[in-house]
């Protein structure tokens, strides 16, 4: 393949990447983030883990050490097997605190301490610079494969030699363009992530294509491939190299597992760029599957390269030289693009992550410390400053990588840098895990553990790798790298735990610790405020970080949430905490904390404040409990109200029915009165007829009057406006009077009266007239309705204890059928033909009302062989007083 074509294809690919990133950013700006947020894009972006070191280096690694290359992929597989409870929690906590980087996470957990974050930034930068150099070198080497093949003249070699610079410049440009567009509260870069996802696809396709070509094109399928692997390992030298060393195997899996969460670029794509923790449901299996696919063909390619290529060929470049030597130029170009993708995506994400850390933990705090002015007087645009600091940091990071690459020159020195970077960032793991799982972990412990880990890493791993000093002599059979990893991580952990146990965290740290370990929103603490006049300076400060629009939007939303109009919310602890966390999303937790404290004038949190916070939490819990109670109380009240409403509705229906019935009852006598009076007006009537008609009119008018009297009586009774004329009464006398009075009803019927006279002499305090009315009514009813041939009327009186009396009145008629017994006390509930009864049907209703007023009761007694009523009287009516003592009494 001509070198010019290669360069042109490469440039076209770069243009495509810029285009994709640009389009994705545009789509995100328009709010179309649904497909950008797809879990598959997230999973693919995680593949930034597979840098050029693994893309090219895995085959070289495998050809030297056999299956050991797989440790780099097995570590992440194990970690992602625990994605459901481990990584999801990490992402949730980090999103909750708007964490911008791994250093920011640790700093936020350990009391928003900036020096700790600055220290972690230092190790990240030291570890990453040679690693970036490694990526540049891999791109240069892959260019050289083609350059030496096709255009061996000096000019092109010169271009190839300068590729490092060109690539570095292009990557810096890409990163600055798409990585520092804004300083949003959530640090997400849709353009970069989408471009990286596409590059991940290219990487995978290139590697799979090459693997399929090797296994089915060069060899005769998997069985043949296995046979070739077995044959290759017959060579004792290779067999010695391939033999797995358990200590190395364990140490490397451990380091890879740590690196997948602690490497700045992995933290960036996995935690910072994640919209929420739900995408880990897919990534939990899809990312290990990606790694599986990337490593499936590594061993075949390594073995085939050894077989087919000259002995002095660089195994790190087998993936390129193998297809090129077989004349598969297109495949070689595809693989080249894959390697190019791996290198560029790593550098871009790494640069973004490191630049965020450098600007947030080195430059901005330094700048703010340098220009310490009275609060409120800073007016310069901090947003522009932070973005420029990031751009500068990107240039510095990529530039340092290039300088390192140029200075080191040799390929061998860089090859080990991947593992060196992994082991360096792995030193963050104990502090990070401890911070997330153990509330007792504190800042001193973090300093101690991390400091020792850092020092040991420098001494045992980093410096020897660049040729300064060396690992001390070890007994035979102990692997130096595994030894160094175990020593550094063990001492790191021990120091961290020991110092944490003896140290005492400050209150802010304890608050943060609680929030991180329990994965709950940080509890608001009531800072002492200087007053509400700080709202405006705070707005001014926020504007300097986010720009005017974003700051005003946030303040307005907060004010609206408090129920205020305008842009200045009250300085509640709630608001300050939220503002601080959102600001932390742009400039890091420590800086945000310091800035808010300076402007809002918080005083240092003390232990007593903490206790107060605990009290507040307790109070909040009680409040919740109270609210819950109130809610159930409300539900109960609502039920009661509903019942009352139902009752009222039923009453209203009853009232309408009552009115209808009353009209009907009044109309019947009225009609006959009208009809007969009309007849009376005709002249030719005999005197006899006239008298008869007048008699009818008179009777009907009487009936009307009685009805109206009854109604009036009932309405007075029901409205409770009755005045009782209380006095002592003998029931015997009352019954006598009632029988006398009732005998006028249907006088033609002769009743046998069945009484027990001695027991009737019971004295009660009651309204004798009213009680008499009830007795007359019941007795007349018996006279009216008893249909027995020889009617008997029985009366029994019983004295009650402690006081009061019971009067049973019964006859020997047919009684009232069971279904209608409940109805007889209703108004107009006449059971039989009205013409026969001649009453309005109000009698028993009135009786019931009277008895209620008297504090007693009247009830129908079923099963007595006829109609039977029981009247129950209390010793005296409730609340009533004896005659003559009532006010307003005649």
């Amino acid at each position, binding site marked *: 393949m001509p070198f010019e074509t290669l360069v042109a294809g490469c440039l076209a690919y770069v243009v495509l990447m810029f285009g994709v990133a640009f389009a994705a950013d545009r789509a995100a700006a328009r709010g179309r983030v649904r497909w950008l947020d797809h879990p598959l894009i997230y999973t693919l972006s995680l593949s930034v883990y597979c840098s050029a070191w693994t893309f090219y280096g895995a085959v070289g690694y495998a050809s030297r050490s*056999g299956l050991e290359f*797989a440790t780099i992929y*097995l570590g992440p*597989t194990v970690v992602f097997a625990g994605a459901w*409870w481990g990584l999801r929690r990490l992402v949730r906590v980090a999103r909750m605190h708007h964490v911008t980087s791994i250093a920011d996470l640790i700093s936020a957990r350990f009391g928003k301490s900036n020096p700790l974050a600055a220290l972690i930034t230092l190790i990240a930068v030291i570890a990453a610079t040679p690693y970036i150099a490694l990526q540049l070198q891999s791109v240069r080497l892959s260019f050289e494969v083609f350059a030496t093949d096709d255009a061996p003249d000096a000019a092109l070699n010169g271009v190839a030699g300068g590729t490092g610079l060109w690539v570095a410049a292009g990557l810096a440009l890409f990163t600055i363009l798409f990585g520092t567009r804004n300083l949003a509260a959530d640090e997400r870069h849709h353009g970069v992530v989408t471009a990286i996802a596409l590059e991940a696809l290219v990487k995978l396709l290139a590697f799979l294509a090459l693997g399929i070509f090797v296994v089915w094109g060069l060899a005769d399928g998997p069985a043949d491939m296995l046979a070739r692997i077995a044959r290759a390992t017959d060579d004792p030298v290779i067999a010695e190299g391939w033999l*797995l*060393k358990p200590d190395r195997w364990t140490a490397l899996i451990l380091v890879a597992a740590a690196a997948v969460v602690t490497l700045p670029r992995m933290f960036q794509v996995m935690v910072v760029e994640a919209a929420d923790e739900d995408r880990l449901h897919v990534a939990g*299996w899809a990312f290990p599957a990606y790694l*599986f696919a990337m490593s*499936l063909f590594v061993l075949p390619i390594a073995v085939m390269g050894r077989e087919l290529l000259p002995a002095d060929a660089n195994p790190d470049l087998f993936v390129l030289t193998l297809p090129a030597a077989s004349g598969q130029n297109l495949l070689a170009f595809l693989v080249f693009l894959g390697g190019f993708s791996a290198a560029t995506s790593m550098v871009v994400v790494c640069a973004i992550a490191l630049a965020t850390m450098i600007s947030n933990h080195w430059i901005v705090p330094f700048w703010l410390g340098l220009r310490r002015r009275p609060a409120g007087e800073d007016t310069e645009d901090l947003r522009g400053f932070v973005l420029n600091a990031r751009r500068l940091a990107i240039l510095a990071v990529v530039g340092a990588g290039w300088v390192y690459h140029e200075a080191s020159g040799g390929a061998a020195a860089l090859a080990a840098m991947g593992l060196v970077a992994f082991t360096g960032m792995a030193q963050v793991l104990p502090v990070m895990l401890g911070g997330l799982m153990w509330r007792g972990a504190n800042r001193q412990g973090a300093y101690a553990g991390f400091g020792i880990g850092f020092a040991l890493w420098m001494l045992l791993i980093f410096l020897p790798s660049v040729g300064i000093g060396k690992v001390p002599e070890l007994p035979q059979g102990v692997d130096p790298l595994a030894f160094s990893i175990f020593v550094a991580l063990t001492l790191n952990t021990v120091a961290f735990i020991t110092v944490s146990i003896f140290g005492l965290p400050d209150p802010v740290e304890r608050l943060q610790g609680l929030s991180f370990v329990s994965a709950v929103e940080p509890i608001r603490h009531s800072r002492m405020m200087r007053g509400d006049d700080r709202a405006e300076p705070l707005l001014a400060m926020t504007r300097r970080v986010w720009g005017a629009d974003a700051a005003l939007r946030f303040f307005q939303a907060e004010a609206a949430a408090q129920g205020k109009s305008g842009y200045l919310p009250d300085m509640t602890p709630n608001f300050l905490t939220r503002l601080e966390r959102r600001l932390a999303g742009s400039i890091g937790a420590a800086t945000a904390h310091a800035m808010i404290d300076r402007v809002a004038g918080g005083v240092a949190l003390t232990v007593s404040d903490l206790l107060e916070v605990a009290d507040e939490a307790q109070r909040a819990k009680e409040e919740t409990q109270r609210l819950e109670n109130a809610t159930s109380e409300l539900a109960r009240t609502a039920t009661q109200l509903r019942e009352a409403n139902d009752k009222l509705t039923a009453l209203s229906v009853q009232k309408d029915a009552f009115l209808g019935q009353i009209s009907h009852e009044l109309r019947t006598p009225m009609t006959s009165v009208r009809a007969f009076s009309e007849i009376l007006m005709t002249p030719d009537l005999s005197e006899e007829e006239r008298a008869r008609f007048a008699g009818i009119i008179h009777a009907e008018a009487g009936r009307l009057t009685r009805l109206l009297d009854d109604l009036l009586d009932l309405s007075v009774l029901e409205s409770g406006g009755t005045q009782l004329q209380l006095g002592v009464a003998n029931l015997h006398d009352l019954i006598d009077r009632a029988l006398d009075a009732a005998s006028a009803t249907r006088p033609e019927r002769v009743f046998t009266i069945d009484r027990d006279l001695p027991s009737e002499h019971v004295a009660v305090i009651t309204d004798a007239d009213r009680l008499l009315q009830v007795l007359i009514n019941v007795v007349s009813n018996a006279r009216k309705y008893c249909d027995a041939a020889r009617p008997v009327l029985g009366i029994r009186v019983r004295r009650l204890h402690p006081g009061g009396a019971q009067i049973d009145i019964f006859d020997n008629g047919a009684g009232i059928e069971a279904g209608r017994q409940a109805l007889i006390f209703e108004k107009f509930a006449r059971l039989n033909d009205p013409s026969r009864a001649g009453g309005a049907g109000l009698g028993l209703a009135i009786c019931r009302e009277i008895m209620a007023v008297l504090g007693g009761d009247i009830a129908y007694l079923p099963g007595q062989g006829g109609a039977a009523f029981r009247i129950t009287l209390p010793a005296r009516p409730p609340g009533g007083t004896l005659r003559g003592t009532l006010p307003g009494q005649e």
Partner: protein
Amino acid sequence: MPDRPLFLERASFRRRRLGDAARVLPVIAVLSVLVPVWWMPREVSFASGAVWLFCLWAAMILAVWLLHRALLRAEAATLRAEAEVADAAGVARATQEERSERNGDAL
């Protein structure tokens, strides 16, 4: 009626046990990767070792996939069951009200 709360119990119980499985899975994964290498490094280093490693790896991915699918379904089932129980409670309350209303009419 009485089997509805039972259903909720079953769904949340299953989800919890699946959650336990998700905690154990990484431990099993790391043991199955480490133990054979410590135990018989010579057998797992070469061609047969490659077959062992990649089969184990594929099985691990499959296990995670199945587990995550089951967990998502269990979560959905729990939510559904809770909603159903809420519905059922609503229906029960409604019938009770209806009944008491009818009683009220009869009185």
